[in-house]
C-alpha cells in the first residue's frame, strides 16, 4: 500500500509542480526516493518535527501547492493535532495527511505507535475528509483523488507494505465518498475498510460456505460517510456485520449503529472493533487484532450462535 502510494504520487507529482511531499524523518524508499532525486525542491524532510511538517504544508497550500505530509499515523495526526485542526481544517486547505500504519499495524511497537482512534480524531475536525483504502489498488485510486481534489484537507490512513490485494475482482469501481460493493449478496452484508477488510473477506468466504449469500463492502471513505449507501445496506440485508480496526467510538461501527437507529432498521447488526483499551500485547498484526477480539473464527461462531438464538 505504501509503495503504491509512493509510485502513484511519483507519477502525478513528477509532472505536476504543485505536488510537494513533506516527510518527518521517514526514509524515502522506492518511488519516493526517485521523487526526491528528480524534484528536490518539492521534497522536504522536516526531521523529527511534525508540527512544522503540518504548518509548512499549510503554507505551501496557501501559496497554491498541493502538499502531502507523510509519516507514521500517530505522529502525523496526534502530535501536531492543533496544526492539523487550525492550519488545515480551519483554513480548509487541500493538504493530505498520510498516516502510515493506521490501526495496530505496528504490532510489535506498542501503544505509542497504534493509531487506534485516528478515524474518530480526524473525523471530528470540520472540513476534514477521511479515507482508509483496504489494499494497494484502492490506495492508488485514493492517492489520485487526494492529489487532484480542491475541497479541503484529507486524512489518508494507509497500512504499510506487502498487504494482499483484495479488490482485483470488485464489482464496482472506487469512488470517493461512496461505499464500494466488492461482491453482492442478499442475506448478510459485511462492512469494513482498511487492512482488516482482509478478515472481512475471509468471514464472507466462510459464511458463503455455510450457504449464505454475502455482500462484502469497502467503506473506504469514512468522512463524508456514504449515508444513503449505509441505509441501503441496512435495508437490503437481514444481517449486517461491521468489522473495523478502530476504537468503538467515532468510527464506522458507531456511525452504522446511529444510522440504523435513525431509519429504524430491521436487520440484525453486529459490530467488531478494537477495544477501548491500550492492550499490552506484542506479536503479529493478527495477534494484536485477536487480542482486541477481531478473530474470524470467533466472529464466525459468534454470528452462528447469534443466528441460532
Amino acid at each position: 500500500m505504501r509503495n503504491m502510494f509512493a509510485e502513484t504520487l511519483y507519477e502525478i507529482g513528477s509532472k505536476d509542480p504543485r505536488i510537494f511531499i513533506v516527510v518527518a524523518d521517514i526514509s524515502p524508499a522506492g518511488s519516493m526516493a526517485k521523487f526526491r532525486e528528480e524534484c528536490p525542491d518539492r521534497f522536504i524532510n522536516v526531521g523529527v518535527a511534525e508540527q512544522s511538517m503540518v504548518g509548512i504544508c499549510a503554507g505551501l497550500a496557501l501559496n497554491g501547492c498541493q502538499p502531502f505530509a507523510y509519516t507514521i499515523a500517530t505522529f502525523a495526526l496526534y502530535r501536531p493535532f492543533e496544526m492539523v485542526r487550525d492550519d488545515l481544517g480551519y483554513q480548509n486547505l487541500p493538504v493530505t495527511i498520510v498516516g502510515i500504519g493506521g490501526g495496530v499495524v505496528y504490532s510489535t511497537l506498542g501503544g505509542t505507535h497504534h493509531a487506534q482512534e485516528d478515524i474518530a480524531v480526524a473525523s471530528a475536525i470540520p472540513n476534514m475528509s477521511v479515507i482508509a483504502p483496504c489494499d494497494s489498488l484502492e490506495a492508488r485510486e485514493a492517492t489520485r483523488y487526494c492529489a487532484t481534489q480542491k475541497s479541503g484537507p484529507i486524512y489518508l490512513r494507509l497500512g504499510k507494505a506487502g498487504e494482499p490485494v483484495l479488490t482485483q475482482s470488485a464489482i464496482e469501481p472506487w469512488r470517493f465518498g461512496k461505499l464500494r460493493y466488492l461482491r453482492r449478496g442478499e442475506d448478510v452484508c459485511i462492512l469494513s475498510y482498511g487492512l482488516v477488510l482482509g478478515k472481512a473477506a475471509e468471514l464472507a468466504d466462510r459464511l458463503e460456505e455455510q450457504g449464505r449469500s454475502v455482500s462484502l463492502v469497502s467503506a473506504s471513505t469514512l468522512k463524508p460517510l456514504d449515508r444513503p449507501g449505509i441505509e441501503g445496506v441496512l435495508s437490503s440485508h437481514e444481517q449486517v456485520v461491521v468489522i473495523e480496526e478502530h476504537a468503538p467510538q467515532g468510527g464506522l461501527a458507531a456511525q452504522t449503529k446511529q444510522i440504523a437507529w435513525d431509519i429504524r432498521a430491521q436487520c440484525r447488526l453486529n459490530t467488531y472493533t478494537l477495544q477501548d483499551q491500550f492492550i499490552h500485547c506484542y506479536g503479529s498484526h493478527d495477534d494484536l487484532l485477536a487480542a482486541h477480539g477481531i478473530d474470524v473464527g470467533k466472529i464466525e461462531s459468534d454470528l452462528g450462535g447469534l443466528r441460532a438464538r
Partner: protein
Amino acid sequence: MAFDLGAARQRCLEHRRRILEISQRVSALHIAPAFSCLEIVDTIYYGLRNQDGRTNDRVILSKGHGCMAQYTVLESLGILPREDLERYCTPEGRLGAHPDYGTPGIEASTGSLGHGLSIAVGIACAERARGGDGRAFAVLSDGEVQEGSTWEAVLMASTLRTTNLIAFIDNNDFQSLGRTSETHPTFYPLEDKFRAFGWDAIEVCGHDAQAICEAVSSRSGDKPLVLICKTVKGRGVSYMENVPIWHYRAPNPEEYQLALSELREITS
C-alpha cells in the same frame, strides 16, 4: 516609492485613534498587543510588501491577537472596507478578535500561538520552488517564541535556507501574565539563539519604521532574517504601557478620553 517616515507616523497615530474608537463599542480587543506591533505591521505593508515590482509578498500575523493593528492598516490601504471595522465582533460583520483566512487581506488564520512561522516557511518554499520573487513576512510575539513549534520552524527555515522569509519578533517583553524575562530568565539573549540556529538576527527599535526598513534592506547573505523589534506593550498611552491588564482590557469612557488626549506621533 520612497518610504515617507512622516506619513508613517501620522498613519500610526490614526491607527491608534481608530483602535481606541472601536474599543468603545466592543471591549473584546487586545489594545496593548496591537499598539506594540503597530509600527511593525504598518511598515511591512507600506514600506516592504510588494516593493521593487514584487507581486506575491505575503504577510502572516502569527500573533493573531494583535489583529487590530492589521485591520486598521488594511482599512487605511482600502483592502478592508470601513464597514468591516464598524461591524467588528458583531454577528453582522466578519472580523473577529483573531484574523481569519478568506477575509480580504488576511493571508492565514491565526490566534493559537506558534503556528505562523511554519506557515511562512511553507509559503516561502512554494515561492522559491516556482521561481517567484515573493517574500513571506511573519510577525511573532515574543511570548510565542516559547512555543516548541516556533523552534521547529526556526530550524526548518535555516535548513531550507528560506532567504525569502523575514520574521519580526514584537519584543515587548510581556506576555499575558507578566514579563517574558521573568517567566523565563534565560529567554534572552534572543539574537544569539536565532544565530545559533543559522539565522541573521538584527535588533531594531520596533516603533521606528525607518530602522525596520533599513534593517531589511541592509540584509546580505543566504540566511533567513529575523528582526528582534524592541517594542513597548501598549505604546502611545502612558497608563497602558507595560501594564499587563491592558493585554485584554478596553478603556472606560474616562480612560478613553485620557488616552486620546495623550496620543502623539511616535518619533522613536
